[in-house]
């Protein structure tokens, strides 16, 4: 029997990542693109439809509504997470005691499974017996129809994302700030700057690259938000919280429009790629300058 050479073995091992790349990335991706050109509902046979699905997508008012909702969700949630996250990092830098306790508390929302967080918040936001309305009533604010009315439901999903992910922004920003040399703070202080100004004008610009990376991760994460919202609102009421992933899921798994679902997925992949490219270029440029 012919002996397998060391070189052949090595080449075979080198194939494994390629098999992974082809089997788990390229093949599903190519299938999505392939079926996006077919009219194909579950139980039926795929019928080639050309760009018919794409025409349907770009003339579908629900698609534009979903896209608008997803972008609004992302901008609002990430904006608030940055505002509160960096604010908390500022406080964390300036407290001299209880920092480790504060960090332990901050980490709690982060470690919760998003689907579970969604279920818990569904109960919390319940208009009848939910905790949120109960505590609001204690300070004299009338109960809101959180998950019943479209606007309130949208705001609720943003609140949950901000609740869960602000600590991430805080902790990473704080970690970045602790790596800065103490002379930077002392010099700015001696130059006459207040603590806030030192933070805003001197320290934050110094960790710009890190902030871009946080932004990058949070934007991607919010654009593809699914589990928390799906378990909390199921995309409703109506289509008030039907974000891109949910819209895709509903078409594929509830209405069984395989072809159309693949078209939505294909568009979504392109959208995410554009966002990733733009943000990673920004982050890369900041990293390179640092």
């Amino acid at each position: 029997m012919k002996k397998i050479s060391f070189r052949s073995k090595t080449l075979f091992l080198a194939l494994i990542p390629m098999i992974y790349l082809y089997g788990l990335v390229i093949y599903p991706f190519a299938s999505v693109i392939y079926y996006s050109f077919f009219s194909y509902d579950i139980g039926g046979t795929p019928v080639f439809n050309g760009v018919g699905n794409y025409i349907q997508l770009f003339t579908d008012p629900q698609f534009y509504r979903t896209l608008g909702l997803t972008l609004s969700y992302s901008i609002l949630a990430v904006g608030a997470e940055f505002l509160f996250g960096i604010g908390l990092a500022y406080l964390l830098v300036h407290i001299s005691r209880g920092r480790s306790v504060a960090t332990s508390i901050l980490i709690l929302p982060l470690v919760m499974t998003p689907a579970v967080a969604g279920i818990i918040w569904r109960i919390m936001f319940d208009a009848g017996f939910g905790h949120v309305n109960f505590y609001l009533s204690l300070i004299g604010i009338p109960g809101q129809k959180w998950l019943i009315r479209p606007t309130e439901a949208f705001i609720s999903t943003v609140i949950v994302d901000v609740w869960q992910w602000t600590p991430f922004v805080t902790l990473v920003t704080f970690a970045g700030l602790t790596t800065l040399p103490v002379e930077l703070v002392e010099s700015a202080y001696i130059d006459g700057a207040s603590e806030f100004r030192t933070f805003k004008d001197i320290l934050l610009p110094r960790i710009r690259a890190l902030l871009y990376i946080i932004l990058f991760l949070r934007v991607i994460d919010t654009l593809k938000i699914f589990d928390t919202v799906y378990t909390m609102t199921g995309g409703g009421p109506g289509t008030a919280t039907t974000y891109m992933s949910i819209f895709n899921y509903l078409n594929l798994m509830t209405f069984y429009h395989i072809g159309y679902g693949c078209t939505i997925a294909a568009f979504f992949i392109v959208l995410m790629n554009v966002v990733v490219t733009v943000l990673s270029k920004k982050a890369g440029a900041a990293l390179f300058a640092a």
Partner: protein
Amino acid sequence: MVEIFLDNVTHIYGKEVKALDSTTLRVENGSLIALLGPSGCGKTTTMRIIAGLLRPTSGRVYFDNVDVTERSSQERNVAMVFQFIVIYDKTVFENIEFPLLVRKVPKEERIKRVKHAAELMGISNVLNQQARKLDPGTRQKVALARAFVRQPTVFLLDEPLTNVDPQTRLELRKIIKELQKDLHQTMIYVTHDQAEALTLSEKIAVMKDGKMIQYDTPEALYDKPKNTFVAWFIGNPGMQFFDVSLKQSDGAFLLDAGEFSVDVSNVSGQLVKYGNELKLGIRPENIQVSSQKKVGWFNTKCTMVERVGNMHLLTLGKGRLEIKAKIKETDVREGDTAWVQFPSEKVRVYSKAGELII
């Protein structure tokens, strides 16, 4: 411009580490002084206490006879340049402008002063560049310009030239000296590099183990070091010491090291009371060496000749003793016999405890 007075200042880090021990120091108005000493001697702690970044454990700090111990750096209006080059993520112009901007100085005035400061440092051509992209030397010039752009009470320079290249170091040394001359500003310069301290400052405070050992002019530190530490620390190499005893021979008083002796008849009166255990100190550059035998000189064996710049550093063996001599020109080679003399006016005598007697 202020006169700074540290009155019996002690600083203890944590519970045990005494960084500064009962230090008293007066920095005259408009003078440039250096704090010099080996690492961990307390010079940076002294500087941080003067800056207001550190509150002393005990003792007081006075600026023009006003007690400022409890005042912050901003209230003291000090300017400081660090060894770690501090540059903000802004353009050179914005960096220098920053202290003026936070003090709400009017725009026109700001532009004028930034341009002037940049001119003094020779960085007018890079005003619009991102400061972080410049080389360390230019970055430190930006940091210096940022300190000089406002009118502080005192300039505190904490080893500002350590992290810059030798060329820029010389350039900045000159700039600092000139600025001090022109502005008559009180400046305190921390360094472990004696060449910097000796060339820049009017007075030098030599520190060791948290204590101020000697505060004097560079000449006095060189000629009459108060103790053996200062004598050894100042100079390259520093003063060398030999254990000697005072002996009388034929009516003359000699400091006898066993292998050689030096006639000190003219000052013997001061030495008698110190008994027999003395230290003879002499700087390598004050020793006379000849390849020819001379009357009254003693012979040694040359074991090494090193070239140090335009000088020769000779290592000379005499019995169990080793003598370092630094001379400009010599025909003595390794292995040769060299004839040596210690000129009595250059010899310093220290007590056993290391304190200067003559």
